[in-house]
């Protein structure tokens, strides 16, 4: 347990060391989201209709942007070797890194969402469902992202490649997350979508670290 927390603490400390590098993801989230009213016009009904989709897509992109810092720096300076040699199973180390990634990108995005939703004229009735869906979905984004990041360690153009690999896998999360928010707009309960998001999280939590650890072992050979 202490090794697990040590990795989480280390990643958090590194993320905020150089004057708030860790805040870049949430800054991107806010900036990219408020580009949309400039692009599609400020008409409130139109914005309210597409706001859940915009928020989800931009949250997804913000999560992907932070992925190349998950394993790459540690792999380059040899820390990943030490992590692999430690008594903590490599799969748990991956979970620790995903948790740190989520705390630096997913959680701040979640906290920023109500403010950005206000600017995108989102129907306030659907905000709780949107936030609940994002709370379930953003960890899944981090988990799938870790698989992509681990498999592309040492690849040419690894940063762009990660997005190509991870985006098709994260489409279902997007579909159900927006579905839950849209159901709330229609004054229905998005319970089915939230349950499916929860199921995806329950499945991704044990399985993604297996794939990511396999990728890390290949990179370290």
């Amino acid at each position, binding site marked *: 347990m202490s090794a697990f927390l040590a990795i989480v603490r280390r990643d958090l400390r590194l993320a905020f060391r150089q004057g708030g590098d860790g805040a870049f993801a949430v800054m991107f989230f806010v900036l990219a989201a408020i580009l949309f009213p400039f692009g599609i016009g400020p008409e409130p009904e139109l914005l309210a209709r597409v706001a859940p989709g915009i928020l989800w897509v931009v949250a997804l992109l913000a999560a992907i942007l932070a992925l190349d810092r998950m394993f790459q720096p540690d792999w380059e300076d040899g820390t990943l070797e030490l992590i692999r040699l430690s008594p903590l199973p490599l799969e748990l180390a991956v979970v620790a890194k995903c948790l740190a990634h989520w705390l630096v990108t997913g959680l701040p995005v979640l906290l920023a969402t109500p403010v950005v939703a206000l600017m995108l004229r989102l129907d306030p009735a659907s905000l709780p469902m949107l936030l609940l869906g994002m709370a379930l979905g953003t960890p899944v984004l981090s988990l799938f992202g870790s698989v992509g990041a681990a498999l592309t360690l040492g690849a040419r153009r690894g940063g762009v490649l990660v997005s190509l690999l991870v985006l098709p896998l994260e489409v279902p999360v997007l579909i159900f997350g927006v579905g839950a928010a849209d159901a709330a707009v229609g004054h229905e309960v998005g319970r089915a979508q939230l349950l499916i998001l929860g199921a995806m999280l329950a499945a991704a939590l044990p399985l993604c670290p297996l794939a990511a650890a396999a990728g890390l072992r*290949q990179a370290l050979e």
Partner: protein
Amino acid sequence: MDFHRFANPARFMRMSIPLLRVLAPAAAVLLALGLVLGFQVPPDYKQGMTVLIMFIHVPAAWMAMFAYAFLAAASAVALVWRHPLAEVAAVEAAPLGAGFTALCLITGSLWGAKMWGTWWVWDARLTSVLVLFFLYLGYLALAHAFDDRQRGLRAASVLALVGAVNLPIIKFSVDWWNTLHQPASVFRLGGPTLSTVYLWPLLTMALGFTLLFAWLLVLRMRAHLMERKIETLRLVAIETRQTVQPQEALS
């Protein structure tokens, strides 16, 4: 069955020559037969002769999924048993699978434009097949993204297994969701609902497509192994040339 016998690339190269000689005519015969039978079917009561697109679209769709299942299985074999030819089979099957998926999407789009009045719709079946297409492209991108080819193949094998979760989603998408795409007519509990007049040409084309896939796969695997040999020979040539060149430069 002792698959270790097939792990020797040289033995594969030898065995593939008679195999190709059988697969090529068999595929050609079945495809020709399928097309002949297809053009002899009576027109559909609603679609007329547009129903003929089905004889390309459905086998292409079946091959797209079969190729990915083959890819995932070969990747699993490569990761678990380190079978040297399994990775080669997987990376050479991927472009074929992507091609079949593209064929499926394009013929489906043409068929839908005529029958549904729309070139595309974001229902579960079409969306999941589009995701399958991008999974193929992602697999190929990862496999070729490393300077060390072996590393690329192994990383791509893990990715192939992760993406295999999409296959049951595609298959059951028409049952789980309300889709514009019609529900299953052939592979379903209770047997096919397709009339035998259409079923026989369809199955013939499907078998022809499968043999075509097998033929192209063996061809591509041979090409891959020959490329590897050429690369090794080039590296050896560079090595031996380097020990000679400095003296030549000085003299």
